[in-house]
């Protein structure tokens, strides 16, 4: 964030404090409910879902009938849409909303600005699709419905709170709010050993990463004397610690760890495939889109937006990490035969592409956001179709899909081509162009070349999969795909993704506007 906007925020806070001076004087924080309305709406919905789950009639001892399951799903959906509406209202209202402020030195912990709105919007739209997918997933009655939606909504709250957080406490809490429900969601398929195993792995890696991040935060706090992001840079300048440079460098790197885990950047990537495979498909989609978006929001906040914090140190590190992430992700995806594992590694690689513009410097954040938005639309679509078709499964199940279910096959082919970044998947192409443009413009030629090569490796597995859709199957594989899931909501989810991606393809300017704004912070 530039200094001008920082001062702008400060003046805003000041004026805000002036209007509510009695509270400010007593140091009791005034809460601007307009600012926190979307997460609040989600939280209320989450409670409502829990209550409904408890009070609506059960069909058997532990599970609800289909109509109740549907009702819970629609409640959650309504909550997310309502939160979305509030977000839109915030956006229409314009300006910056801040709350949880302290007067001296002036700083706010919760700020709704453009980047918050962009990430919030992304999260909520993705949330809609994930809920639609969940409605399919939950139709077989194996999973407790109320808990599921409650946890899902909690994760969403975390995901939309995180980009609004402007101090380290808030950031950590939001981050944990995204993580913890997902462990539970993963393990919620209670009688599936693989789900439990996936949950253990996710839990372990996540917890270690969180601990590392917290350790980094503690060091950063020690060096700067503040937890507010906007003051860290200033605090470091007059740091009480002698020889602070090394300590702060290490601290920044450690702080990155938690977010790097979320985005599954190398070397925090190993969990991805196992967890995606073990979890149910909606959870995998959640991990790969919502949780990842939250991670990137945190990274961008810490590294780029708040203050270009030690950018001469972290920029090359991020560039190298981006190169490693995309390369390793792609190489691992290259020989996958399991659809969800393939998508897992592919989303690791895509994380690399999103990280790449940050390897140019803080000014690359805009391109990163642009890519993230495109990626979210494409990747969600791919997961949704994967769920629709074979609930994940082996690539062999997709063979000849176009002859059995042409619409699904065409949609999947479209998403894959988008992910590969080739026309007619223009969305992916423009996303890649945006990143390349940032890299070339920023003079990081080597990273651009690495990314070019990676694009080719990526195309290999995407196109292999896409081609399989159009290759007649040698023998009927009908038996494998007797779907126990209710397909209609998932199909709606696919349709939503297709529409969004097509819109992004035809009028990508929508996304570029968002990216531009978030870059300005």
């Amino acid at each position: 964030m530039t200094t001008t906007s920082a001062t702008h925020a400060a003046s805003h806070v000041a004026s805000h404090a002036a209007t509510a001076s009695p509270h400010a004087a007593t140091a009791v924080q005034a809460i601007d409910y307009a600012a926190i309305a979307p997460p609040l709406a989600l939280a209320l919905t989450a409670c409502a879902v829990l209550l409904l789950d408890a009070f609506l009639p059960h069909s058997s001892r532990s599970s609800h009938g289909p109509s109740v399951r549907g009702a819970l799903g629609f409640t959650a959906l309504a909550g997310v849409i309502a939160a979305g509406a509030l977000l839109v209202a915030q956006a229409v209202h314009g300006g910056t909303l801040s709350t949880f402020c302290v007067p001296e030195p002036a700083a706010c912990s919760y700020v709704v600005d453009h980047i918050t709105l962009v990430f919030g919007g992304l999260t909520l739209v993705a949330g809609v699709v994930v809920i639609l997918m969940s409605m399919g997933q939950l139709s077989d009655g194996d999973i407790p419905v109320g808990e599921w939606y409650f946890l899902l909504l909690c994760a969403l709250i975390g995901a939309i709170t995180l980009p609004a957080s402007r101090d380290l406490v808030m950031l950590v809490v939001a981050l944990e709010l995204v993580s913890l429900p997902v462990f539970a969601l993963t393990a919620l398929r209670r009688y599936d050993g693989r789900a439990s195993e996936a949950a253990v792995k996710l839990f372990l890696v996540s917890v270690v990463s969180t601990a590392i991040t917290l350790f980094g935060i503690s060091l950063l706090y020690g060096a700067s004397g503040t937890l507010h992001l906007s003051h860290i840079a200033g605090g470091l300048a007059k740091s009480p610690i002698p020889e602070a440079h090394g300590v702060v460098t290490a601290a920044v790197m450690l702080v990155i760890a938690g977010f790097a885990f979320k985005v599954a950047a190398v070397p925090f990537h190993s969990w991805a495939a196992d967890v995606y495979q073990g979890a149910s498909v909606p959870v995998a989609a959640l991990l790969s889109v919502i949780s990842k978006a939250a991670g990137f929001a945190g990274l961008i906040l810490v590294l780029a937006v708040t203050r270009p914090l030690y950018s001469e140190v972290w920029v090359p590190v991020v560039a190298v990490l981006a190169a490693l992430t995309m390369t390793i992700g792609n190489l691992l995806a290259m020989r996958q035969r399991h659809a969800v594992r393939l998508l897992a590694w592919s989303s690791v690689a895509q994380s690399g592409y999103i990280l790449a513009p940050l390897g140019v410097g803080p000014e690359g954040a805009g391109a990163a956001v642009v890519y993230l938005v495109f990626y979210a639309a494409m990747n969600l679509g791919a997961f949704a179709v994967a769920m629709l078709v074979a609930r994940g499964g082996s690539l062999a199940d997709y063979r000849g899909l176009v002859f059995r279910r042409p619409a699904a096959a065409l949609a999947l082919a479209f998403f894959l081509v988008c992910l590969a970044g080739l026309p007619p998947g223009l969305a992916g192409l423009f996303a890649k162009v945006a990143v390349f443009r940032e890299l070339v413009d920023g003079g990081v030629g080597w990273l651009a070349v690495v990314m070019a090569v990676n694009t080719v490796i990526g195309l290999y597995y995407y196109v292999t999969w896409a081609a399989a859709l159009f290759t007649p199957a040698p023998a009927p594989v009908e038996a494998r795909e007797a779907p126990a899931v209710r397909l209609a909501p998932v199909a709606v989810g696919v349709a939503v993704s297709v529409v969004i991606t097509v819109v992004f393809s035809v009028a990508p300017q929508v996304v570029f506007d968002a990216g531009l704004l978030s870059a300005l912070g």
Partner: protein
Amino acid sequence: MHIVYPVVVSALLFSIGVYGVLARRNTILVLMSVELMLNAVNLNLIAFDVWLGDRLHGGQVLTLFVIVIAAAELGLGLAIVLAVFRNRRTVDLDSLRDLAEPGPDCDAAGPDRGVAGPAPAPGPRRGTGQEGAAT
């Protein structure tokens, strides 16, 4: 007291935690090691808070949050371990390896045999060598 002492202690504590996480096979012990790591953080935060004389007491506030988070994590972790134990009759991390990259023997058939058209002749270089060509 010089700030170095608590910081070094906390670093040691953290390292012990890391070692525990890496070396212990029993999931419960691993969870305890994570607790150690988080407590190292708490120690750090408190020490810094005092040393800095932070007017807002950010360090202490965060410490409270970390304690809560640790509790939540631990609770959830134990629940997951329970689920694992119910499904697998073990809490040994090493044996939780159902989810992994399939071994090389599975791969020998090639990732593409399942998805390709009529399988390309396996022998000739032209058939198998080019999948990753031009990288």
